[in-house]
């Protein structure tokens, strides 16, 4: 199961719109100008995801995880390297959180809010543009290694699992933060997304 080039481009555009919405929301919440880069998108089998992500992120990682359900269902995870996550939380709170590079409770809460906004904005495109509305669980933050995080996504299932990896960059003040969204879905959900995209692709 894979998406055609045109479908992949359309999905990247959908995430691009979502990320810009997220940037606008974050700018409003923090009172700082936040911009995002055009995302790069890769679709792979879930078994390949560790190798793909290991080329991009390493060490301890802060992740915000939400389960989503509805017409399509799966796991949505935002990953940011620990150090960058702390810098992001510190800048967004004018230094009130993550002092000394530690992700204290306040910093974790801020990152949970950021993750919730980003994941919500990106996946709301499924409902708005593809007519595949989804609902979310309460977001949870984890600070772990990539392997542990991905291990929690590799659930035994009787259908093949796929991952959509969206790489982007958030920029505010002097800081550029690489963020990675992983949308893990089963073959049935990916087929529904593919069909909805085909209906939209001219």
């Amino acid at each position: 199961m894979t998406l055609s080039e045109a479908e992949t481009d359309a999905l990247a555009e959908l995430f691009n719109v979502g990320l810009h919405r997220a940037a606008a929301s974050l700018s409003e919440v923090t009172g700082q100008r936040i911009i995002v880069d055009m995302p790069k998108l890769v679709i792979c089998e879930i078994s390949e995801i560790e190798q793909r992500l290991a080329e991009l992120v390493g060490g301890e990682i802060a992740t915000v995880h939400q389960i989503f359900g509805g017409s399509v269902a799966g796991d949505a995870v935002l990953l940011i390297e620990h150090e960058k996550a702390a810098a992001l939380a510190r800048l967004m709170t004018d230094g009130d959180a993550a002092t000394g590079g530690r992700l204290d409770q306040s910093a974790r809460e801020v990152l949970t809010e950021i993750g919730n906004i980003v994941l919500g904005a990106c996946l709301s495109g499924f409902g708005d543009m593809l007519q595949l509305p989804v609902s979310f669980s309460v977001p949870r933050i984890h600070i772990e290694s990539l392997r542990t995080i991905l291990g929690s996504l590799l659930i035994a299932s009787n259908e093949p699992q796929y991952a959509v990896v969206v790489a982007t960059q958030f920029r505010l003040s002097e800081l550029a933060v690489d963020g990675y969204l992983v949308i893990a879905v089963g073959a049935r959900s990916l087929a529904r997304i593919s069909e909805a995209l085909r209906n939209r692709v001219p």
Partner: protein
Amino acid sequence: MTSGERAGDPALRSEAMAEIGNLLGLGVLSVDKTLIVTGWNEWLERATGKPRAIVLGRSLREVEPTLRPAAVAAFDRAIQGSVVVMSQALHEYLLEAPAPGGFEHLGRMRQSVRILPLRNEASQSLGATAFIEDVTERVAREADLRAAAEAAQRADEAKSKFFTSMSHELRTPIGAIAGYADLLASGMFGTVTETQTERLARIKTVASHLQHIVDDVLAFARIGAGREEAALTDGDAITLAREALIAVEPLAVKKGLAVRSRLPADRMPIRTDQVKVRQILINLLGNAIKFTERGSIELEVSLVDEGRTVAFSVLDTGPGISQANLTGIFDPFTRVPNHDRPKPGTGLGLAVSRGLARLLGGDISVTSEVGVGSRFTARIPR
């Protein structure tokens, strides 16, 4: 109404969530799609001082006239189906309430909030429920920790600045003392008697000792301030070991100690800061000589960690160090107390050596046995 329908009744669901909130110590506020309050638990009654009897059935805007636009927008998003997180650090609070006892100085209660959509069985929106956690105590604790960390950092910076400027102020006159002693001894200012020559030699020895102490203090201040940098070049571990032995040999000979070495015959290439490694070795060998009254000192060089690291071990036949005294031996200004006679020094040599070894990606360890001797090992990556 059947029991199944009753279980799905939004009012009953609000009631159940309110009770769970009371048990968990959370505020639970439910509103319908038009922001009319449908749930207000006891926790909220206590926190805001507003009894549920006068709150239920009224608009949230009316109940909370100071409700901020961001809060209204958050409820709107939840009513439309989104889960909303409002972190304390970005929003401070959802509902205005006084800070709890003991934290009155903070004014308002700080809150962490999750707002969830409220839907019926057919997934139609009925409103939203906010779960409010009082995080005032945690925020106060974090602020205290932040203030303490900032104060500690300021103190550390001040200490480093003090050390650096004081050491510079000391170096210049020490240099002048040694220089003038040399000039006097050379006979430039007139004939010097044998007694005067001997006294001038003492002045030079003391000045040199003082210079050594100031150098230790300066190095320690630079490492502490993160200003010490490693200049990596290609070299040979065996050459470094030989150079260090040559530098300390006269001291050992003066004390009647044998100097031994166990060095591999072949070159042992190492890419590191050669000057700093030499300084570490001279410090460790100098210490061994200082604390050993009879017997020998030995320098052993080998490869460990599958050839990735060079281990330089300095062994002595000194008095040894007890387990109790080994703890904190690398801490600055630490001196081993049980020697017969106090030895000169600042107690900074080992702290500086360990700081330099760590700067190069390595470390120093020690094993010792009272009455037998000690072994200090510097492991430096190649």
